[in-house]
């Protein structure tokens, strides 16, 4: 008999017909019966004497892993369920921030922009200031409505430049009097300059805002839908005293 059949017989793995054949053989072959007994003994011995490992501690570590998997799944489920909402919310925040900032940019300009504004403007030809008619016409053409508030007679314009900053038309005039040169910026719209810093004699009055730009005193005001910024190597009070002469209206 094939010894494998005997093992399978002991294990109960033979078909009914094969089992009958083995049993018949065992009845007539004591050696075969002894072999079957030996297989049975060894099988039982192995089963009853094999070590049983204590896994109580290692099982706890397994449970911890299950808990970690559950935690990760909960997080994934949350993110997956609300991913679109989270992304959409984030988008709205970015959009709102951009609109807000743009809104701010529309009416506020950091003082650091002033140097950029003055440097980036393109110089333009200025008439000889003694020709007052020419000067009037020049300022009308250059400044538009802003010229209505200015007193050209008070101005000695020695230089001019113009350009666009953040979509706003900007004109720079270089003015000169007996004390030296001044720079005046004229911008479309109502603009508030931020971060001017505090000047020694700064005082918010008469609608002026005073401050310092790069250590230089400046005064800012709005008239007629335009914003003016006068800068010079003088005190803010001196500049404020010039404003009525330059901008009497």
């Amino acid at each position, binding site marked *: 008999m*094939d*010894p*494998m059949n*005997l*093992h*399978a017989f002991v*294990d109960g*793995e033979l078909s009914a017909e094969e089992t009958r054949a083995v049993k018949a053989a065992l009845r007539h072959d004591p*050696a075969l019966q*002894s*072999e079957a007994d*030996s*297989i049975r*003994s*060894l*099988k039982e*011995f*192995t*089963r009853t*004497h*094999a*070590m*049983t*490992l204590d*896994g109580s501690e*290692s*099982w706890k*570590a*397994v*449970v911890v*892993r*299950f808990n970690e*998997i*559950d935690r990760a*799944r909960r997080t994934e489920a949350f993110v997956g369920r609300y991913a679109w909402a989270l992304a959409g919310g984030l988008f709205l925040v970015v959009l709102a921030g951009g609109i807000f900032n743009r809104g701010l940019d529309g009416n506020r300009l950091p003082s650091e922009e002033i140097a950029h504004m003055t440097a980036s403007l393109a110089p333009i030809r200025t008439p000889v200031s003694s020709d007052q008619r020419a000067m009037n016409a020049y300022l009308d053409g250059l400044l538009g409505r802003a010229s209505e508030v200015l007193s050209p007679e008070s101005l000695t314009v020695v230089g001019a430049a113009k350009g666009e900053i953040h979509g706003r038309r900007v004109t720079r005039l270089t003015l000169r009097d007996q004390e030296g040169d001044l720079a005046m910026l004229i911008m479309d719209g109502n603009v508030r300059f931020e971060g001017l810093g505090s000047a020694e004699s700064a005082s918010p009055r008469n609608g002026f805002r005073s401050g310092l730009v790069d250590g230089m005193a400046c005064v800012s005001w709005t008239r007629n839908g335009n914003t003016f910024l006068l800068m010079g190597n003088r005190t803010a009070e001196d500049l404020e005293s010039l404003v009525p002469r330059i901008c009497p209206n």
Partner: protein
Amino acid sequence: MLFRRRDGRDAFEREAERVYPSMLGVAYRLARSRDEAEDLVQEALVRGYEAYSKFDGNNFKGWILRILFNQYINRYRQKTRGPQISSLSEDGVVEPMGDEQSIPDRALLNDMVGAEVENALLAIPEDFRIAVVLSDIEQMPYNEIAEITGVPVGTVRSRIARGRAALRKRLEQYAQQEGFI
């Protein structure tokens, strides 16, 4: 959804805890190291937990042992782990267990302790060893052993027979060394 997921976790944990000792025993007899066995079992259970939704509900032990065995094949079998298959082919001759005069009797076997059984098991070729472990210790039928190990039933039958013969020989050698026979 939350309760359903918790039910799945509870059910899996119950089943896993029930078969955990068996898994540990099988893993130990595969990896031949307690630490590696625990690692192997943990990884198999993690994989099983992650794939539990695919379990058809029949025979959890067989299913998880299949995962364990595959885990062992993928991770550990690359390293040399002692005898894999004996020099004889799978279809080689199965030696008889022994004649009446040389077989130690039942009482003699009972004198041996479990450590000797384990040592003898670990000394036989791996494929035979795992077949004997699953059959004689875990009491699994041939078709389940075939499913777990990924071989035909006929190969399982051969490995069990040859494994028992090899185990028997090891135990006899020990008995002779110790003067039992």
